[in-house]
């Protein structure tokens, strides 16, 4: 079966004649391309041009395009080319493509197709990055204002609060998060105690492991770990929930019912997270110490009784309180960003994924920045 695409070209005094044979289809396009390149002259094809299709088996629009493109580059005017010996369907295909040549390869083929990777311009990237970062910060500050206003309204008019939504969110962000917070805190407590213990045993200072772990967990580790978990678990969920509602026009529906979106959707989420996080940090403190206690018993010969005894001296209540005070601030930041990213989802499907990812990144960065500010502040206050 001859399935290869072939063309033969002859030039006479009366003009040029191109005989096509074989199958001119998408699947044979590569050989077609080469065969056409070889058989026609590079330019100056003699008019009038006749294309003879009497030996042609099949042609589709891709084959037709290859033919016209090559004829044109050889200097023929497609509209003056005469078609001879083609079947009706073949002629229709050729004419369909010929009628569109202007838009395909001619003067109306406008716009550069970005089919190949676009050129990377570092300067442009830096500029765009800076502008979008600036817009992000401004947008977040603006959003902070709106949320604080909505919260103030809730304080002044408590009947505006939606208790149902609040409690639904609380169960989501608090109760459901306890297992993962407990697991991670336990392991962190265990690991920190182990690493401290390795050093401390060398100096026979085993008992000070309790001091180190307790201070570290209560002031830093527990709030940070819980913040990271909540950013990944609840912040992203807020962005995805509100983003989906945005795309399905639910948020528009809420607005047209005369309700405030901030009151209905944002305030309950923010409050829920602000209430939940100190509780979770406390869980983290307790379970983390349990983890430390476990390893202390096995590795450092500090029994649970001794551990708790030491804890009473080592862990002043203010350390615990500092950790618990940080928690709602971190929570507010996470909820704020999660909700804003959800509200700014645009109408295309990529947007939800992008904003959800951005929520987690922004929230974690912001939490760490806030934590650094806390460190400086507490240092200045002598706490």
């Amino acid at each position, binding site marked *: 079966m001859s399935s290869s695409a072939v063309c033969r070209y002859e030039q006479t005094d009366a003009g040029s004649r191109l005989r096509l044979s074989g199958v001119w289809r*998408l699947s044979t396009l590569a050989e077609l391309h080469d065969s056409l390149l070889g058989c026609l002259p590079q330019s100056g094809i003699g008019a009038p041009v006749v294309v003879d299709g009497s030996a042609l088996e099949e042609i589709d629009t891709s084959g037709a395009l290859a033919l016209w493109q090559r004829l044109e580059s050889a200097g023929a005017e497609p509209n003056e080319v005469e078609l001879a010996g083609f079947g009706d369907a073949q002629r229709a295909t050729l004419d*369909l493509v010929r009628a569109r040549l202007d838009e395909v390869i001619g003067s109306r*083929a*406008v716009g550069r197709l*970005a089919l190949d990777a676009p050129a990377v311009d570092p300067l442009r990237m830096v500029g765009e990055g800076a502008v979008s970062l600036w817009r992000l910060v401004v947008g977040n500050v603006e959003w902070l204002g709106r949320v604080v206003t909505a919260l103030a309204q809730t304080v002044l008019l408590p009947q505006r609060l939606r208790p149902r939504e609040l409690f639904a969110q609380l169960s989501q962000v608090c109760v459901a998060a306890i297992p993962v917070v407990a697991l991670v805190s336990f392991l962190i407590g265990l690991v920190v105690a182990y690493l401290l213990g390795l050093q401390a045993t060398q100096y026979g200072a085993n008992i000070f492991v309790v001091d180190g772990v307790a201070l570290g967990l209560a002031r830093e580790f527990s709030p940070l770990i819980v913040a990271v978990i909540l950013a990944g678990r609840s912040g992203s969920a807020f962005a995805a929930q509100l983003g989906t509602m945005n795309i399905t026009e639910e948020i528009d529906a809420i607005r047209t019912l005369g309700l405030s979106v901030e009151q209905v959707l944002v305030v309950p989420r923010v409050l829920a997270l602000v209430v939940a996080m100190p509780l979770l940090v406390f869980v983290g403190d307790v379970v983390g110490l349990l983890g430390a206690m476990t390893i202390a018993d096995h590795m450092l010969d500090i029994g649970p009784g001794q551990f708790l005894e030491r804890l009473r001296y080592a862990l002043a209540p203010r350390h615990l309180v500092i950790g618990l005070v940080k928690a709602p601030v971190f929570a507010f930041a996470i909820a704020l960003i999660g909700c804003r990213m959800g509200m700014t989802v645009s109408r*295309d499907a990529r947007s939800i994924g992008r904003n959800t990812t951005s929520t987690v990144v922004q929230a974690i960065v912001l939490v760490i920045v806030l934590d650094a500010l806390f460190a400086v502040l507490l240092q200045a206050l002598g706490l």
Partner: protein
Amino acid sequence: MSGPAFRDAASSDEPVVAIDSLHTRFGAQVVHEGLDLRVRRGELVALVGGSGSGKSVLLREIIGLHRPSEGRVRLLGTDVWSAPQDELEAARRRIGVLFQDGALFSSLDVAGNVATPMREYGRIPQPMIGPLVRLRISMAGLPPEAATKMPAELSGGMRKRAGIARALALEPEVLFLDEPTSGLDPVTARELDALLASLNRDLGITIVLVTHDIDTILTITQRMIVLRDGRIAADGAPAELARSDDEWIRGWFDGRRMAPPLPRSASDGA
């Protein structure tokens, strides 16, 4: 081998779509109950039926996206649900699908969307891809400027056209369309009908579409398949079905208040 030789030898008489005693159940809900269907090469067929009659599910079963509970589905001679993966993929390269909202890749512009299947196909010389992309865009009735637009910037009608351009990328033998005219204004919808009719007529592409649009059915389809209660309730030319004894089927046509005169009386014509 999925080359042209295979296609020429196997094709002409074999039905494009062949469905035998198809059953589909979702839990206790029965959608298809022993459905048989043949679509022949070159036809322009509309699948119609009430909401929930399983038209779209049927389409998804034909193109291998939803596994039927029982029965056999053959697409271009390939048994969709028992053929090896590469055979199914070869069959899929010979079809084009337009999903309801176009299902364009939102991270790529229109040209990128159309070029995707061409690049994956791997047998197209690089310098041909650009012109071929523009040809598909033009064949789908989009202006040349649309090539560089992102899907989010397109109107509903343009989105569907871009979806058709992508579906046409690899010279499909069959085109499956899910509600091609839904959500479009009547002018755009009729333009789209004309486009489909010309693809069917000029390029010989077999077209199977799921639709609610009685205008599409009346103006371009040669065959209308009505799904009801899990079976094919009627199958024939729209003009014939308009004279059906079944009141429910006639309702599809009578529902039109401002209908152009239908060739509905048997006596004056034939």
